[in-house]
């Protein structure tokens, strides 16, 4: 890029070249500055400040104009220093920068390395309470991403209400555990089964829908579940939520400071709250890996191929004798089941749930993870979850600006890799019965 600019500049007399470029450069910078102004007026110019007991508006017009000025000067400088317009060059640079993921052998070592790191993470010297909490959160989203990947990535059914199954799982778990006094390990499969049932219930009315229409209906379904949880006081305790959800136990051993049958007492350790956190970490790690393993296996079975075929061409599927109704419903049900498991874990970890935790933004984040990771790719989803959720935590200090950073990062990733971090699809079978090794954890390359 720089070389190209160099040769042209050497070719023509510098002064005339500069003059001829002056007018378009100013025009372009002016347009950019106007766009910057239009954006920064609503974003920056007004601010609410608390004065005593009342909120007042603080005017910050100077900020908007500073932003505009900065954009103008910066854009002008870029225009004059280099050939061509800036926008196309930025995308050209991004195009060239497709270095990120070397094509072959990548999934082969990356996935095992990531799993190995995940297994030893709690015993690393830097692993404190904060790191473990963030890791548990990330793994929950990895699991949710993998669950939604079945519905969106494999079967191609755009589901904007996935959080509904997360909520059903969490509430089923909480209610079963409290009212029937059942432990974590018995309530977990029941909650998963209930979520799968709700997956079927949602699946039936939307069988004939695809694309945008399906997205709208699933979005509504997600909201309906939340509103029901919010208003069904008798069962769900409404907006106050449910507290006192039992914590998971290890073969009956509890993670408590005092009392009989505690983990610390049994193993002769001194009590540390970190024990429980590490235990939770391993539970979600195992749940997530099971989700991944089952998905990878299913993908290679006739049902998995039928899902992908359904994503590619539903009419052709029907002409080949595939019952698309059953195929879609299994995708919904299995995806919902994993969402339900993740919800159960969430409830058991928090000990408290309320409808606040199951808003649309959760669905959006999970969908963003799947899309960003690359539809259908297991390892891509894991990486995207780490980037998104980890990034959220990393930029916590930036407070309100972290959404801005987050949005920018997403725009850049989508420009850089429009089909997600890992866009290549691994075949489920090769002629001669050979399996594709990197596929073992991934659909990577």
């Amino acid at each position: 890029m720089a070389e190209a600019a160099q040769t042209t500049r050497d070719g023509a007399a510098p002064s005339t070249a500069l003059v001829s470029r002056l007018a378009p450069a100013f025009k372009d910078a002016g347009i950019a500055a106007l766009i910057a102004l239009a954006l920064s007026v609503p974003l920056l110019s007004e601010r609410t400040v608390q004065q005593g007991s009342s909120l007042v508006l603080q005017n910050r017009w100077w900020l908007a104009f500073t932003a505009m000025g900065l954009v103008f000067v910066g854009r002008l400088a870029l225009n004059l220093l280099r050939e061509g317009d800036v926008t196309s060059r930025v995308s050209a640079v991004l195009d060239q920068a497709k270095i990120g993921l070397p094509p072959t052998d990548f999934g082969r070592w990356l996935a095992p390395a990531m799993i190995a790191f995940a297994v030893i993470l709690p015993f690393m010297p830097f692993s404190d309470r904060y790191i473990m909490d963030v890791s548990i959160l990330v793994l929950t989203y990895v699991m949710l991403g993998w669950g939604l990947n079945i519905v969106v990535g494999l079967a191609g059914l755009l589901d904007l209400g996935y959080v509904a199954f997360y909520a059903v799982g969490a509430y089923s778990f909480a209610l079963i555990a409290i009212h029937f006094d059942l432990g974590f390990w018995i309530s977990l499969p029941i909650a998963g089964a209930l979520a799968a049932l709700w997956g079927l219930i949602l699946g039936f009315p939307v069988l004939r829908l695809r694309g945008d229409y399906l997205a709208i209906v699933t979005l509504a379904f997600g909201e309906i579940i939340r509103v029901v949880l919010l208003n069904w006081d008798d069962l769900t305790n409404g907006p106050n939520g449910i507290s006192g959800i039992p914590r998971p136990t290890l073969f009956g051993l509890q993670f408590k400071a005092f009392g009989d049958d505690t983990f610390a007492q049994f193993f002769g350790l001194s009590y540390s709250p970190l024990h429980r956190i590490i235990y939770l970490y391993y539970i979600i790690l195992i749940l997530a890996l099971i989700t991944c393993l089952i998905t990878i296996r299913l993908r290679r079975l006739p049902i998995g191929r039928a899902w992908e075929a359904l994503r590619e061409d539903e009419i052709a599927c029907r002409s080949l004798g595939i019952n698309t109704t059953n195929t879609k419903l299994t995708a919904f049900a299995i995806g919902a089941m994993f969402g339900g498991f993740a919800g159960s874990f969430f409830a058991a970890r928090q000990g408290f749930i309320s409808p606040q935790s199951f808003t649309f933004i959760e669905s959006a984040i999970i969908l963003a993870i799947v899309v960003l990771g690359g539809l259908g790719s297991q390892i891509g989803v894991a990486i995207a979850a780490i980037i998104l959720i980890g990034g959220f935590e990393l930029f916590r200090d930036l407070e309100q600006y972290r959404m801005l950073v987050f949005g920018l990062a997403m725009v850049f990733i989508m420009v850089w890799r429009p089909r997600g971090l890992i866009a290549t699809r691994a075949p489920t079978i090769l002629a001669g019965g050979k399996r594709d090794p990197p596929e073992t954890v991934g659909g990577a390359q």
Partner: protein
Amino acid sequence: MASRWERDPVLTVEHLTMRFGGLLAVDNLSFSAGRGDITALIGPNGAGKTTVFNCITGFYKPSEGRIILKRGGDGVMGELAALTESGRRFVERESGALYLLERMPENQVSQTAQVARTFQNIRLFSGMTVLENLLVAQHNDLMTASGFSIGGIVGAKSYRDAEATAVEFALHWLERVDLAGRADDAAGELAYGDQRRVEIARAMCTKPTLLCLDEPAAGLNARESADLNTLLLSIREQEEISILLIEHDMGVVMGISDHIVVLDYGEKISDGTPKQVREDPAVVAAYLGVEDEHVEAATKEIAS
């Protein structure tokens, strides 16, 4: 003497009528397709050929009429009236089976009645490999073998064997259509003519009794369409299946068909052997408007 397709039909279409709102796409159409025959359905654009196809393969529910698929001997024909009366979709006996296709959804037409089809605009699963395309076509057999995924998840041997057999069958068909080396390529990356052949191979992987091809030669060059003729003839000879095809390419139609049905404006205007149809004035009129002499006469009139 009754023609051979009336003596032993695999497919009998009776009084088929299809209306879309006020539009009458197919009007009281009746014809038979003989067992082991290549039957061509031809006609000008908009004659209703694809609509007939969609009715036969279950994609449309006909407004009126009956579509009977018969497998095996004639013994079962005696049950036709009872079957129609009963409201059931099919009857299967030792000696043969009858299916009323107009009552079935498209996936059952394929799975139970064993009618396979291809599409005018190729509908491959373009992101998946060629081999995967052919395995999806064997979905129902494999699904049963995988114990509805339960056996497959735990890696049962019976499923692995079934899958190996399915792969073998798929590779056999890839060889038949000359694409053995392309099994692991994404179907969408193949050349147009190759995609057409993959679609036929995929349809054959459903192990059909009747193969319906919607313009299989569209977009093929002369050599490819000659190869297609050879392929279709070999399918008929070796697999003992019947073929029903829609085609505009007269080289293909006249070269390989045993029986031609001509449609125009949703009505049958001719029905017979290629020779009979070619000489039928109604067909010539439908394709060319009127015969040449009339055109010449008209031209002279205008000139004078």
